[in-house]
Each structure stands twice: as structure tokens, then as C-alpha cells.
């Protein structure tokens, strides 16, 4: 058992535990924290695969920016425990076995039919210089379209989250 495999299993165990914990928790803030654990573990997996820049961006953008947005919204709306209804019990009854069956099926197919392809640690160095050259030459058009998408998202978020001008201001209790 190589060090690479041990590290993969350790990070993978954290990711799996976080994913299961996200389903098990009823309070959104606990789910958010377990999702952050999943993202940190995935950053470790990216480092094992040699994608250093992707790992750094995963921590900075995903765990840093997007999850802060989530936690901020949870705090802002002051959400409580989620309420379970009859429909959600039925969904749990069918959803959890369905997930297990789907995971086992995927695992069986992958482990059996994927051949002997193995990935070495740091197989493909994804340093910022190489990524940047690829991003600004070969993927320049998608990159520019992405900037338009971000601009639209910013404007949409501002418009949606701002108070409607016609509605009367609500009194503070």
C-alpha cells in the first residue's frame, strides 16, 4: 500500500463522511459545515492528482467565497431545523436505498470494467502558468463569455435581493 493510496483513502473517507453528514443533519448550518469539510478533502485529492492551482482555487473560491455566501444567508434568514412532512418521509424511504443502489452499481461497473488505468501522484502538473496559457489562448472565447455570465449574475443578484420599490416598508417588531 503506497503513501499515495493511503492519502487518497484518508481524504476520500473525509469526503464521504462529509457527504453523508450533509444528508443526516437537519440544521442547515451543520450541513454547510460538512460541505466545507467535503470541499477541503476534495482540495487534498486535487493536490494528489497534481492539480495545485485547482486545489488552491477550490479552497479560495469554493470553501472561501461560495460557502461564506451560504453561511451568511443561513445566518441572515435565521433558519431553524427543517420540518419533516409525510412527503419527505416517503422520499427518505425511497431515496436512501436508491442512493445506495446507484452508488453500488456505479462502483461495481467502474471497478470491473475500467481496466487497469492508474493515476500517479502529481501525474499532470497543473501550475498557474500552464493553466493560464491554456485559458487565455485555447479557451479565450469561453473565458470571455464567462465574464458576461458573471456580470449578469451580479446584476440579477442585486435586482432580486433588493427590496421592491413599490412595496411598503415592513415595520420592525
Amino acid at each position, binding site marked *: 500500500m503506497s503513501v499515495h*493510496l493511503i492519502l487518497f483513502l484518508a481524504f*476520500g473517507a473525509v*469526503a*464521504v463522511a462529509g*457527504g*453523508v453528514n*450533509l*444528508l443526516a443533519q437537519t440544521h*442547515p448550518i451543520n*450541513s454547510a459545515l460538512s*460541505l466545507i469539510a*467535503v470541499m477541503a478533502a*476534495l482540495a487534498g*485529492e*486535487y493536490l494528489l*492528482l*497534481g*492539480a495545485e492551482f*485547482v486545489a488552491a*482555487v477550490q479552497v479560495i473560491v469554493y470553501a472561501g*467565497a*461560495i460557502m461564506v455566501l*451560504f453561511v451568511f*444567508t443561513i445566518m441572515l*434568514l435565521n433558519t431553524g431545523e*427543517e*420540518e*419533516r*412532512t409525510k412527503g*419527505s418521509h416517503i*422520499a427518505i424511504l425511497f431515496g*436512501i436505498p*436508491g*442512493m445506495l443502489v*446507484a*452508488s453500488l452499481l*456505479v*462502483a461495481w461497473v*467502474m*471497478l470491473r470494467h*475500467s481496466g487497469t*488505468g492508474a*493515476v500517479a501522484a502529481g*501525474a*499532470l502538473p*497543473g501550475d498557474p502558468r500552464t*493553466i493560464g496559457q*491554456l485559458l487565455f489562448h485555447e*479557451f479565450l472565447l469561453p473565458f470571455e463569455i*464567462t465574464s458576461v*455570465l*458573471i456580470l449578469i*449574475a451580479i446584476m*440579477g*443578484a*442585486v*435586482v*432580486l*435581493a433588493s*427590496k421592491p420599490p413599490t412595496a411598503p416598508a415592513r415595520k420592525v417588531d
Partner: protein
Amino acid sequence: MVPLSYYLVLSGFLFACGVTGFLIKRNIITIFMSIELMLNGVNLSFVAFAAHWHSLAGQVFVFFVMVVAAAEAAVGLAIIIAVYRTRETLNVDQVNLLKL
């Protein structure tokens, strides 16, 4: 050396967790986090395939997925705030009408 299939199994499991959370959770914010979990699972398979096929394009795709996730989170959380302002609930069972 770790077989590629191990990475794909982990990625598939995270995706399945995300799908299940999307279906069984009743809080809009948790449903949103399940979508992020699905995107993360897909990102892992992108990076694993990039290392396997020795092509950096897979790693560049991850950035585009992250950008889409960021845009989706910003707009989606704004929608959640708007929904909460009009209905004062985050339970999707009680948000079953498009009109007020």
C-alpha cells in the same frame, strides 16, 4: 499509484449524495448545497480524467464549473432571500405556487 476507477467511484458517490439530498431535503438552502455537492463530485472526475489522459483541458473545465457554481449560488441565494421575504418560510413544501 491509485486506479482511476477509485477516483470515479468517489466522484459517483458524492454525486449520488447530492442527488439524494436534493430529493429528500425540505430546506431550500440545503437543497442548494446538495447541488454544490453534485458539482464538486463532477469536478473530481474532471481532474481525475485530466490526469489520466494527460490533458490540462479537464482542469480548465473545472474553473468554468466553479464560475457557473458561483453565479448560480449568487442568483439562487438572492432568489431564496426574495422567497423568504414574501412567504416567511424556507420549507419547499409550503412554496408550491408561483404566484403570491
